[in-house]
């Protein structure tokens, strides 16, 4: 943490002002770490800080208690300046059990704050974590870190001693003790959490009382116990003025669709089969039937996408969402939408793979799948959001382009964006570009594969329009008439036409934003959820006087028309990705530039440290 050491006068204990901090709550899957992290996030947002979060949890719903693989964690960075990432190294780690300590201690900065729930450090849990002896008894731990042993279970029980709750119910409150302690340490307002408790336990006043008491007991413990020497404040961030809310990527994708449904005045049919980490979109949309969003929990991934295609054929907007394994199953159907030239939006919330891979972890390895993962020449538009809040705009844009060009659009989000949240400046929806759909009703000169001269889109006809009855399908069509055609030259023409149609979507792409000098030594090119890490790394390099700029691509197919020119303004091009080098290959192939990749595939976001290091290495190697 950057320590601007100004003591705040009047505080009982010395209070120092920081410009940012990185905190991680870690415990057993059943310890409520996700909730604790979310509430701490809400408190920080309420305090006016910029925030970025990283939930990280096991795929097992209730992994065996106390095990290393059952550890669940929630990390966030909050600051008085723009915060682009959840942070690399931790300023503060809360370890609710030995397994959490073992898994996460390595990420804590030397001298960092380590808060340990000693009540969980019994023989059984130590054995499960593989500790031969109790690590908190090892004096070197306290020398390396600012270690605070807190018997949270006992303190929680003490706070609840006169309440009629059983031991298990009391135990379950201890995460709010931890939240109270850390809230005191970083001077967080408790109001958002108290409000949440009131709502969540509206029907069980005893539990509301219990959680409130424990939260406040934790907070008071920080204030009064002798162990914490000081605590911290973080001033509100200088953010664009306006109304903000916390936004996760999955919710933003869903709400982007709602906005598009409202603006286009068309119903949306969303077909999905439950899959991590995409299921949240289906669940969110199912709550908003008033927007004429019709959700189908389909029998499988193929039914999910084909139901969406059937809806598009009917003149609604078909959308489907999944993760990589499901997208693999949808491939043939996406090809049908390419061939039938119907609008279709496909969300891919990427996760670690191949196969089942790492269902709850993030990855960016489905770019090639999106671009090329279907039989034959099957071009589609590919977009990627950069932040959780950006998912709203990208979902809207995907839909707008899909109906304008009569083309499938794949949106590549990822597990990090899906579950991560950021304070999001609520947009004025009237500023969103219009989505004007005109169904063909004119009988004069109608053919199903007539083309708009600007977009090459064929006419969209709603069944029910008298006189325009026609048939479409997956067999190659003669251009214009739409009749089945096996003619070799027609096929070649249609292959080129489908590609050209996607290429023309480049008309929709605004000039590329370059973060940094318009030319120089290194250009860092990224896409998707790595935006924060890349921006932080590039800005740090810039502040060190290095000639570094960054470009983040929203459009991956087609690529921005000005990208080739931009790439040539720098001596070296670095492409950090959470895959083995996919965009870098596209750029090399497309522009004949000697771009190099920086690739880590660990199921985690790239850290800005490692990208910064890669920038320096590239500068040093030239």
């Amino acid at each position, binding site marked *: 943490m950057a320590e601007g050491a100004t003591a705040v006068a009047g505080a009982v204990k010395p209070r120092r002002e920081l410009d940012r901090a990185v905190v991680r709550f870690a415990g057993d899957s059943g310890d409520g770490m996700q909730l604790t992290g979310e509430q701490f996030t809400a408190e920080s*947002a*309420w305090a*006016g800080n910029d925030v970025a979060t990283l939930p990280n949890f096991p795929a097992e719903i209730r992994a065996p208690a106390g095990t290393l693989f059952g550890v669940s964690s929630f990390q966030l960075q909050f600051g008085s300046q723009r915060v682009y990432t959840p942070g690399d190294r931790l300023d503060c780690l809360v370890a609710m059990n030995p397994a959490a300590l073992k898994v996460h201690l390595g990420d804590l900065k030397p001298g960092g704050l380590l808060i340990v729930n000693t009540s969980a450090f019994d023989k059984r849990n130590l054995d499960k974590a593989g500790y031969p002896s109790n690590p908190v008894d090892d004096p070197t731990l306290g020398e390396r870190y600012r270690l605070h042993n807190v018997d949270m279970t006992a303190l929680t029980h003490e706070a609840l001693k006169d309440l009629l709750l059983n031991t298990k119910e009391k135990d379950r409150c201890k995460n709010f003790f931890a939240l109270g302690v850390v809230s005191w340490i970083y001077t967080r307002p408790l109001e*958002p959490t108290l*409000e949440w408790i009131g709502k969540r336990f509206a029907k069980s006043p005893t539990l509301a009382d219990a959680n409130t008491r424990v939260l406040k007991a934790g907070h008071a413990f920080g204030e009064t116990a002798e162990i914490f020497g000081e605590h911290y404040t973080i001033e509100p961030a200088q*953010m664009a*003025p*306006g*109304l*903000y*809310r*916390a936004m996760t990527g999955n919710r933003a994708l869903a709400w982007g669709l*709602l906005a598009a*449904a*409202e603006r286009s005045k068309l*119903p949306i*049919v969303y077909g999905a089969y439950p899959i991590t980490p995409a299921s949240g979109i289906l669940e969110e949309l199912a709550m*908003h*039937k*008033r*927007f*004429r969003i*019709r959700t*189908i929990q*389909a*029998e*499988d991934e*193929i*039914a*999910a996408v*084909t*139901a969406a*295609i*059937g*809806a598009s*054929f*009917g*003149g*609604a907007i*078909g959308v489907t969402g999944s993760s990589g394994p499901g997208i693999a199953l949808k491939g*043939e*159907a996406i090809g*049908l939408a390419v061939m*039938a030239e119907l609008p279709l939006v496909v969300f891919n919330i990427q996760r670690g793979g191949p196969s089942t891979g790492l269902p709850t972890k993030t990855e960016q390895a489905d770019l090639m799948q999106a671009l090329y993962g279907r039989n034959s020449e099957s071009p589609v538009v590919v977009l990627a959001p950069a932040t959780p809040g950006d998912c709203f705009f990208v979902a809207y844009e995907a839909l707008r382009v899909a109906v304008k060009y009569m083309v499938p659009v794949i949106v590549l989000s990822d597990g990090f964006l899906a579950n991560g949240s950021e304070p999001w400046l*609520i*947009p004025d*929806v009237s500023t969103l570009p219009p989505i004007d759909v005109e169904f063909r009703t004119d009988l004069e000169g109608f053919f199903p594969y007539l083309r708009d001269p600007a977009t090459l889109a064929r006419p969209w006809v*709603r*069944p*029910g329009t*008298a*006189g*325009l*009855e*026609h*048939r*479409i*399908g997956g067999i190659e069509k003669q251009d214009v008439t739409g*009749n*089945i055609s096996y003619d070799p030259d027609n096929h070649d023409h249609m292959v080129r036409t489908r590609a050209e149609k996607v290429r023309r979507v480049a008309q929709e792409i605004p000039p590329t934003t370059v973060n940094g000098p318009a030319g120089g030594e290194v250009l860092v090119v990224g896409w998707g959820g790595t935006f924060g890490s890349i921006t932080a790394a590039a800005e740090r390099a810039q502040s060190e006087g290095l000639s570094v700029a960054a470009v983040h691509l929203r459009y991956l197919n087609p690529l921005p028309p000005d990208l080739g020119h931009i790439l040539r303004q720098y001596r070296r091009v670095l492409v950090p990705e959470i895959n083995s080098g996919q965009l870098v290959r596209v750029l090399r192939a497309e522009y004949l530039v000697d771009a190099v990749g920086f690739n880590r595939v660990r199921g985690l976001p790239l850290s800005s440290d490692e990208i910064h290091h890669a920038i320096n290495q590239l500068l040093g190697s030239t």
Partner: protein
Amino acid sequence: MSTTGAGPAATPKYTKKDFESDQDVRWCPGCGDYAILSAIQKSMPDLGVPREDIVFISGIGCSSRFPYYMNTYGFHTIHGRAPAIATGLRLARPDLTVFLVTGDGDGLSIGGNHMLHVLRRNVDVTILLFNNRIYGLTKGQYSPTSELGKVTKSTPMGAADRPVNPLAFALGSGAAFVARTVDRNIPHMEAMLKRAAMHRGASFLEILQNCPVYNDLAWNVIYEKESKLQYELRLEHGKPLIFGPPDDRRAVIMDGVVPKVVKARDVQESALWVHDETNANAAKLLADLFAPDFPVPVGVLYAVDAPIYEDLLLEQEQRAISERGPGDIGKLLTSGDTWRI
């Protein structure tokens, strides 16, 4: 076509020709699909549905070329997925009349899962399953309805998998309308097509169909004059299960819980099995009857009203709108926990 009545909203009076598209029909000479196409085109005017409100959806296979030959809206999709396409279409456009044309391979093998779910959800589509017990378009491999031991190009020593019974499959999936007809019995086929089309909800019509090239006369038991006389059991609601030539009338009766064929004259009227289209258990027993031990039932096995998927979902939508008003994205974005900077 000519329009009846004065108002513009009146459904035009169509003829068969109004449903013929301008495309050349490309099935093999003698294919049973020709008779089915003709019967469907001929039945359409009687449905009273404007032509532009009719959609034919198909998957892949010989039968799936069907939409190209109908002068309605049509979508020839991908193998096995027509039920899911139709589900999405119905949810988007409950005002349309949707037909689904499929075959034994498309509907019961690659698309078996979708068939199960479109039936259990009771989506309002009319499903026409052309069963010729063979793969035609891929040139003669066995299908999921081919008999055990069937010798085909892909099973030179005989098929080792037992066939699925489409009617039993449909009933087991929870279908609320299940019927069977035969491509060589045009009046019956037309009657069944209309019944299936008029039924609200998923209606499943198996059409026994001949593939003259790869599986000729697979249904000969119900084609050949003498054999047909012996084995065809016409199901009619309220009528007893009696079949066979005039001089040898036989009856299907229940012997305990097992169907049994007996001479009709030996059975007292009270012991006859009277067909009841609303009896699910009886329908399941009927679905399993086949020659040579039993007759071949044709007609409506089962027809009841059941809740329709898209009706229920759209009712929910209407309820949400009437209770809380239409969606307003501006309001949604600013709802819940927000803060001002």
